[in-house]
């Protein structure tokens, strides 16, 4: 009995973290990134965008901040149509299979350093699961996301969704390789797969892409870190570009390319099932941004080694969480900015870019990093 109680007691902390991070932060962020996408694209195209929905039955519009709520309500109330020709079980399974892996990966995302709460002796670590194989876990779970899309395309049992599904899965498999290879220089430099300790090292020595700390007003840096910027910058470009392809965002949104494939793999889906695909894409985008920030831009740490990791005081713990989400939001805005500025690639160009350029450059980059590390000992 006591054993069961200790097990249940040890589950309290992760449960609170999961509820707060996933349901109270990531899911609202997903809804509001759709809103941000619409407002930001309107800004880029000199339109107004959705600025009317505010508090119901009043004229207070709050710049349209009520729009995501209204959209969600609309999706729930819409008719949920299951076409007669689909394979029912997999047709229903597919949307869940795209959403679940996207959200699962945030288990290892360090969204803050530590949080020292009053009345508790030990500071809490701001990550749901502090896994030693953090990065591998992310790649493993993210690679399961392709099932949702493949099954959606196949279960819809019609032509456009099938072509969309096949395209999407080959695209995701291809870019997973360059995504994985582009991270290896980071692993070689930090010598650890644990995301928390990667961020801690960046906090102490400066970010991967900004390896400078300030001593008073004097910049402190080592020559090795400056030279290592070259492979890290190449890695960063490959990682971010592959991230666009992995999340099926423009300029690589070939699977749902409207002019060729109607809506790709989710052509036959309606109401909330369509919304799950839609939201799964945004969730993958948010969490992908989270990992780009964690690996290359210092995660929760402030630049130049400022601040603390929150082990000493509550204030720096909260600042770290705020820093992390500020960076993630900045990255999401970058995603949106690219979507509305760059035209779509052709499918053969996409595959060429992945296999002929990124794969080789990433391999060469690993060699380069190894050479630099060997040279500086």
């Amino acid at each position, binding site marked *: 009995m006591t054993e069961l109680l200790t097990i249940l007691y040890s589950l309290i902390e992760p449960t609170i973290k999961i509820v707060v991070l996933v349901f109270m932060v990531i899911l609202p962020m997903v809804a509001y990134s759709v809103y941000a996408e619409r407002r930001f694209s309107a800004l880029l195209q000199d339109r107004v965008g959705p600025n009317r929905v505010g508090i119901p039955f009043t004229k207070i519009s709050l710049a349209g901040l009520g729009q995501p709520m209204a959209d969600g309500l609309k999706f729930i109330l819409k008719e949920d149509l299951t076409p007669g020709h689909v394979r029912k079980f997999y047709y229903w399974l597919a949307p869940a299979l795209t959403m679940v892996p996207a959200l699962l990966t945030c288990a290892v995302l360090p969204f803050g350093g530590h949080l020292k709460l009053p009345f508790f002796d030990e500071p809490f670590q701001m990550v749901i699961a502090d*896994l*030693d194989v953090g990065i591998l876990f992310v790649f*493993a779970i993210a690679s399961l996301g392709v*099932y949702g899309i493949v099954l959606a395309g196949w279960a819809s049992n019609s032509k456009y969704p099938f072509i969309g599904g096949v395209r999407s*899965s080959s695209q995701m498999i291809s870019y997973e390789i360059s995504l994985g290879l582009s991270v290896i220089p980071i692993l070689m430099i930090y010598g*650890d*797969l644990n995301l928390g300790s990667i961020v801690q090292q960046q906090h102490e020595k400066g970010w991967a892409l900004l390896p400078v700390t300030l001593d008073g007003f004097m910049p402190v840096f080592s020559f090795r870190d400056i030279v290592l910027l070259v492979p890290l910058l190449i890695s960063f470009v490959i990682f971010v570009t592959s991230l666009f392809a992995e999340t099926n965002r423009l300029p690589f949104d070939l699977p749902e390319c409207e002019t060729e494939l109607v809506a790709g793999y989710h052509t036959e889906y309606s109401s909330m099932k369509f919304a799950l695909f839609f939201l799964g894409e945004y969730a993958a985008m948010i969490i992908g941004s989270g990992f780009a920030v964690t690996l290359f831009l210092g995660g929760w740490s402030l630049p130049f080694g400022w601040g603390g990791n929150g082990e000493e005081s509550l204030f720096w713990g909260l600042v770290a969480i705020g820093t992390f989400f500020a960076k993630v939001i900045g990255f999401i805005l970058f995603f949106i900015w690219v979507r509305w500025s760059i035209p779509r690639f052709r499918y053969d160009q996409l595959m060429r870019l992945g296999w002929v350029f990124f794969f080789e450059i990433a391999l060469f980059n690993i060699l380069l990093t190894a050479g630099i590390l060997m040279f500086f000992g």
Partner: protein
Amino acid sequence: MEVLFYIFSAIMIVSGLGVVASRNPVTSAMCLVGSFLGLAALFIQLDAFFIGIIQILVYAGAVMVLFLFIIMLLDLKAEEKKSVNYMAFAGGLILALIFMVQLSAVLSNFEAGDVGFTPRQAQLTLDKDLAGLPESANEKLREDKLPDVHLVGRMIFTKYNFPLQVVGVLLLVSTVGVIILSKRKLS
């Protein structure tokens, strides 16, 4: 935490049965994915995080996606209508029974079989500071934790370096072979 062991074993057995029993090849493939996930969870319970995660990454995430891909391009209707080959069914059953008898014979003579199921931290009989490991990994060793990725990497790249190179060459040869086979006309 024995409950988790039984849950994941049940998942593995049920999906394993699904692989052989279902008529639809896509269902079989998805059941195999479920079985791999259950296996990965069992590895993770035994503190072998690296093997568990690689199990998902390689088998569930890459190999099975390609399987599913191929299956979907085939004519499934013909496969579903195929009648059961009773001879093959009986042969498979007999083989499985022989395997079970042998397994139980081995396990009944195996001393470790008497030990109750308590997944415990792998007992480290290694020296506490291993050469060639980064400081963070050595620190974990001193705390009696298992930096399994570092240990596996160290083993592969020092003791088994030559077999690793051979495997690499083998993979390269098969890749080249595939390219030659898929390009019928060589000019």
